[in-house]
């Protein structure tokens, strides 16, 4: 009888994949992120929303240690994936990034063929045993990226020759080729037109059955459409975190209410 309520409750029962406790990030003297605590569930899409400069992208990049490439960035606190501290000295960021894939704001396929774009990750991580194995991996990844049908006849055409939406789906296929467990997406649709955006969102909805997806978006409507849980960031701290439909129909914090109804920037 109460089907809808049952479905929503089911979301709340999935396991925690990423847990962050007391995370602070400093860029030189600027305190970018303050004391963030959040538990991100597996097999769900979690959206980070908030105004520009609120720290959502910074926090996302902590999850796969991309902030290591920036010299003046200092990350403190505890971030665990599958209960393993990713900032432990024994962790190699390169290995971490095979497990935690990333898709960027502007589609950035390598200037190589479509096949090589997808095969690069598995190749450097030694995931394929031979050519036919690699062919399988590439096909699987392109299918999961919902772009196989469009490119299967031209795998050796350059990846940069595709349209914007196709390029982004290629980048998603590239990210899933290394069999990650977590997918981080930094505003993946902001450079795409509405139809391509809708296609990528539909793809994200399919992906959540297999991966833990975390998406940063500056479009609240996108977060509303695509995610099951939403975290609202403001001025570097996590203001509210909860099920998406609750955040958008009846949020707890007045700051969240102001942001989603467009009363603050």
């Amino acid at each position, binding site marked *: 009888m109460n*089907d*809808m309520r049952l479905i929503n409750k089911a979301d709340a029962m999935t396991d925690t994949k990423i847990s962050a406790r007391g995370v602070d990030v400093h860029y030189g003297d600027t305190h970018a992120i303050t004391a963030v605590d959040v538990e991100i569930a597996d097999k769900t899409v979690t959206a980070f929303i908030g105004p520009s400069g609120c720290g959502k992208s910074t926090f996302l990049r902590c999850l796969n240690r991309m902030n290591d490439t920036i010299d003046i960035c200092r990350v403190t606190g505890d971030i665990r994936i599958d209960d393993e501290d990713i900032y432990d000295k024994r962790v190699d960021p390169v290995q971490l990034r095979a497990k935690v894939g990333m898709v960027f704001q502007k589609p950035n396929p390598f200037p190589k063929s479509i096949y090589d774009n997808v095969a690069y990750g598995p190749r450097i991580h030694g995931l394929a045993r031979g050519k036919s194995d690699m062919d399988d991996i590439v096909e699987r990844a392109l299918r999961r990226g919902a772009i196989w049908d469009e490119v299967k006849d031209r795998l050796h055409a350059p990846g940069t020759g595709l349209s914007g939406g196709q390029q982004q789906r290629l980048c998603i296929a590239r990210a899933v080729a290394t069999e990650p467990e977590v997918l981080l997406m930094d505003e993946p649709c902001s450079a795409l037109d509405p139809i391509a955006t*809708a296609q990528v*969102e*539909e793809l994200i909805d399919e992906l959540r059955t297999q991966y833990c997806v975390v998406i940063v978006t500056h479009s609240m409507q996108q977060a*509303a*459409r695509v995610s099951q849980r939403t975290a609202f960031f403001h001025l570097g701290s996590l203001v509210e975190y909860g099920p998406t439909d609750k955040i958008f*129909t009846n949020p707890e914090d007045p700051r969240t209410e102001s942001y989603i109804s467009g009363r603050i920037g």
Partner: protein
Amino acid sequence: MTQHIASAYDRDLEEIQALIMKMGGLVEAAILDGAQSLETHDVALAEKVRAGDKVIDDLEEQINEAAARVIALRAPVSKDLRVLLVTMKLAGSLERVGDYAKNMAKRTAVLAEMRAVDGTESSLRRMAREVRGMLNDTLDAYLRGDAGLAESVRQHDQDVDQMYNALFREFLTFMMEDPRNITACMHLHFIAKNVERMGDLVTNMAEQVIYLETGVMPEEARPKGDNTSVTLIDDEGV
């Protein structure tokens, strides 16, 4: 129309429509059962109808919540928005129809202890069946997007109004004939009024369906056949 690119959106809309259809079915059954219990003086059936109204009320709440959620999360426009607004209104109307059916059933318990008033009960049953048919057509029109069917429902309300007029006169006559009939006739009259109101509500629902399909509320005033407000019968009988 083609599907949304986001299949979850289509699924959400279908779920809400399924709920409306379910609610509509329950209300139709309540009308029929209520009329049946009145005719056969079946108190147990009447009690079942009364108890069933709770489910109908819960469904209305559920539909409203679900529609609010879809509006918040999907920011629907154009036809999608009309679907949700109309669905919410339909739920409200159905809930009131259900209440009237419950009312019908409540009075059965009282009427069961009185003697029957000739002829009126079958008329009432016919009226109830008419209204149920209209409701069925309206729900069909909603499901199939058939604005023509909904328009015919609008026209149909006239018949129900005529039946009510006739019943009103009959009751007046009966009450003037034999004062012992007054109690029963009063109750029966309330029931008849309720059924006529049900017909009006179902007509409203049909108009909402037309709005859903065309985007415009039907303008011409529908034919109103209820002239009981000006009916007068003198002592000699008309």
